[in-house]
């Protein structure tokens, strides 16, 4: 709601191959839980740690109602946002 500032990113509109690397995601299946997705998506990690990672990478699922629960259409990222901050 604050008054917007003028953008000053001259290169914003240019192609950035690195910024467009694919970020892996899954669509939840009926009845899915965080644990179930963590087990499928990050099978080599302890489930609790994998769930914590997934939740941290999917904050958008906690900013809406129902918070933290899956809707059928959701995008659930199974990789972190890009380190250079290009993701949003």
């Amino acid at each position: 709601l604050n008054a917007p500032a003028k953008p000053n990113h001259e290169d914003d509109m240019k192609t950035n191959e690195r910024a467009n690397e694919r970020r892996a995601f899954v669509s939840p299946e009926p009845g899915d839980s965080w644990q179930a997705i963590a087990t499928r998506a990050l099978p080599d990690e302890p489930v609790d740690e994998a769930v914590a990672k997934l939740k941290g990478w999917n904050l958008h699922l906690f900013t809406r109602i129902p918070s933290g629960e899956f809707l059928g259409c959701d995008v659930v990222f199974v990789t972190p946002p890009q380190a250079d901050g290009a993701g949003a």
Partner: protein
Amino acid sequence: VPDPASEPIITEAIVAPGHDGEAVLVVRVRHENGAIDSVTLDEGRAQQLIEACAVETAAELRGQPRQRLLDVLESSTAPVRRIGASMFDILIRNGRIVDGSGQPAYAGDLGITDGRLTLVGGHAASPARIEIDAKNQVVAPGFIDPHTHFDAQLLWDGQARPALEHGVTTVVHGNCSLSLAPLKAEHRPKVVGMFQQIEEMPDAAFDGAFEWTWESFEDYVAALRGQVAVNVAPLAGHSPIRMWAMGADAQKRAATPEEIGTMQDLLRRCLEAGAIGLSTSYVDVDENLFPVPSRFAHYEELDALAAVLGEFGRMLQVVPEFYSTDITLARVDQLAELSRKHGIPTTFSPLFDSIAQPTNVSRVLDRVAEQFASGARVWPQVQTRPIDISFSLDVASLFFVSLPIWYLILRLPRDQKIAAFQDPDTRKKLLEAAEGDGRGSRFGHLRIRDHHDPALNGRTLAEVSSERGTTPATVMIDLSLEEGLSIQFLSANMGHEDSSRIGPVLANDLVHIGASDAGAHIQSFATYGDTGYLFSEFVRRGGHLGLEKAVRKITSDTARIWGIPDRGLLQPGMAADVVIFDPETIARGEEIPTHDMPEGGMRYVRSASGIDTVIVNGEITWSREGGYTDARPGVVTHA
């Protein structure tokens, strides 16, 4: 003394059959050096030459100066294309024809007979019931708006005011998973609630403004038929389809295979009845701020519905999580997969430029280009206008969605709302929410509009609060109470406002100009005139698009993307949707509040500048001199 034998003249003119069965005129010319060659004229140009030489027959052209022939050829750079008619219903003379193809403009006439274009280019000799002099004006195909929410408005205002006077002759409605059909009677209150929440449509737009005569899509189309001045291309909404198949469970769970089958059958019937496609949403909420039914659909459900779209080659429209580039990219990939698998076009809207995500547009367009290269059709819709929001404290504007206490109070009945703003304890909580988070006032940049004291209009709340020794939020509440909550506040340029960034995006051939949201958000901003703004801001001022390309982007491109037959081009045989406008003045007017909704409800509108005449299916529906007409020539494009 010049030698008559060396003067370049027409030596012979012979009427001959053309390759397509029409007559042509073969004109032989002798040049200065005595050489003879010939040129073949179509019927229109032949008539021009006869008129230019002031003769009555082709035979009398013999001996006429070659220059007359050259003058005729130079006056029209495109071939005259004509079919049939001996008398036109409407003849538009002397226009600058921009035919929607993107090809260079050319001078000529446009003839209309029985709702169809029968002459494009050249100069007509035939009579006409109505003649329009379009000197110094552009004659173009009617504009097509691919993202509107005129679902309800068309039932009491078949002219879709004021979109029509901006040159819009075809509208796509039923976007964002929301449509009024197919819709069981018991689900009407729920869907109306969604329209009110998502599109800010007031109660009066539904209660008593029209008679609900349908449940099926076929009957909804029947209710529109004969009532509309614009052509309509309605989408079927995923949310009401889901409600039809699942009832209240549509907002609770995944669909069973049987329920998905029911939805497929229902969608198929919608498409057979004239739906241009299916709309769905990943972001919208209902009147209780709970996700709309379409958001509970798993990918398998959408895939099954896309398969039905594939049977008809129709469009899938979605609203992605536009606030996140990463999620939008994921949606582009999903849409591309559906597009390739089922052979369907897809489109998503909106795609914004904003300071919050400065690389958003470039990243998304890169991904879109990649998917097009792989054979998918994923069209991003980009709007032309900056994001401005106006509001009063009389309605619950989306401006306040991130301030829950404000939003809750604004949703109260009017008397309770006024009491809350006057209550010291409530005021304190409101002010703390708006100004007590250490980020300074959220309201200081807002500009006052429509106050009875003109000296206040245009000033910011920061300026006024500084003079009064108080805070912007306090001034907002006080002025609102003084004015009976009718005073408006403008938050301008909240994003998408830098034309140097937006112009090249609009010119991108993979960008679909749209996302106007016309007919929605009526109490927050005017959703009309985006087409005028395209010409004033990005053709005339910025030069990002040429005139012909700008016309193409909102006519034939839109028709091609959506598979709308017979429209978007000025060619003989096409439907006669035509807009005549002055390329030097076409623009959107100022945003103004008006009270022309049912029961006197308020909305923001913009009038049109530079538009002269709007013709739909061969009938004049609006003109600068006469305003709106009684004609209702609009059709359902796919019915």
